[in-house]
């Protein structure tokens, strides 16, 4: 939360060169301005792509190439997570984690390091408002077992209920991600490979909670939880 706030403050500071006042109103005005600019540029984009290249619209297309045309996720050589409906603070926090190598992913490192703070905010707000149906495709056999783990945890294995942080409907909050509708192989990959990919930031980010939790889940328990949340809307 604090870190996400400071990014916004930086963005505002750059533009105004002064202290932060009437933050919400200003932020809204700024976002509206950015959006209007992006749309006016995209109107001319049919003729010449060049002016749109730095714009929000072009960057959104870039994101959606891999993350699904409606942000619903996609299966490339690697599974690409759903961004639709995702918490903006989570998206911002993860983009920072890629840059600071707390989350290991060479592709996303390259993607993230050219994004300005104001672009990150605009992208995150766009994805928050998308609501396509879940990507689907997960095996259905273990959904009931997954629901039980999600709602009650596994006290004998020191696994807390997922719903305690991610919410009963899997919508997440602030830096805690939405899991509802998340792509199944992506979820399985993250939970089984947590330590290698996301275990470097346990001192500073929410990985402190998830690293031991993921470690305490067996493969079949991971698959059950992943299948359950992948069908949540």
């Amino acid at each position, binding site marked *: 939360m604090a870190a996400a706030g400071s990014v916004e403050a930086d963005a505002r500071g750059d533009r105004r060169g002064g202290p932060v006042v009437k933050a919400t109103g200003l932020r809204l005005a700024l976002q509206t301005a950015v959006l209007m600019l992006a749309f006016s540029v995209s109107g001319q984009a049919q003729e010449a*792509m060049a002016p749109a*290249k730095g714009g929000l619209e*072009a*960057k959104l*297309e*870039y994101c*959606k*190439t*891999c993350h699904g*045309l409606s942000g619903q996720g*996609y*299966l*490339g*050589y*690697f599974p*690409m997570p759903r961004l639709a409906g995702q918490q903006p603070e989570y998206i911002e926090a993860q983009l920072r984690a890629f840059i600071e190598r707390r989350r290991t992913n*060479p*592709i996303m490192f*390259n*993607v993230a*390091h*050219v994004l300005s703070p104001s672009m990150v905010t605009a992208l995150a707000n766009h994805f928050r408002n998308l609501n396509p149906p879940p990507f689907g495709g997960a095996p259905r056999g273990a959904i009931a077992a997954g629901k039980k783990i999600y709602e009650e945890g596994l006290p004998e294995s020191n696994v807390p209920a997922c719903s305690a942080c991610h919410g009963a409907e899997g919508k997440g909050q602030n830096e805690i991600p939405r899991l509802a509708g998340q792509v199944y192989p992506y979820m399985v990959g993250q939970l089984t490979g947590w330590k290698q990919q996301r275990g470097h930031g346990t001192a500073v980010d929410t990985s402190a909670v998830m690293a031991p939790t993921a470690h305490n889940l067996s493969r079949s328990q991971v698959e059950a939880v992943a299948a359950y949340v992948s069908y949540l809307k």
Partner: protein
Amino acid sequence: MKRIGLKTAILAILASTVSAISSWAGESAAVRNCTWCHGAGAQGYTVAPRLAGQRPEYIMSQIRSFREHARNNPFSKQYMWNAVAALDPYTARDLASYFASLPPKPANDGDSALASRGRTIYLEGIPEANIVSCYACHGPNAEGVRDIPRLGGLSYSYLKGRLEQWGQGYHSTPGSPMPMVATHLGPEEIEALTSYLSFVR
């Protein structure tokens, strides 16, 4: 007259190569109908891409796209729409798995001076210009996965044509992100990428 003689000779060579690999395919008129254009051992020939080593799900999805006229570039219209019109789904599946099983050879027809630039774009994209990493979907060695095609070793001229055609508004598989990818690629990036890919084994 001379042309007919040449074609017969090619056909004879084809038939003998192919039959050495698979007895089913060797006898199959369906395979010969493909390799007539797609080359001996299905290694590709001018505008007809290599099918050897291609992902079977991709071959099937493209056959479907030709049949439904979704893949609509000029050569597809001229050749492939008719070529698949009478192909039943079982034969299509057998052909796809047969061609997928043939060992692919790289075309090696790109500009080797551009290959290292192409490799960088393939792996990293150009984030500043909204050019995505090809690697994310097509894999570390351009081997493809499921219905995402293998690109490694396909000919420079074929790949270049495909990338240019997406930018020109031709379609392939419904829902494919490729038209969006291609609109951001300039001629220089296309040259580099396709050169690199032509050398990948």
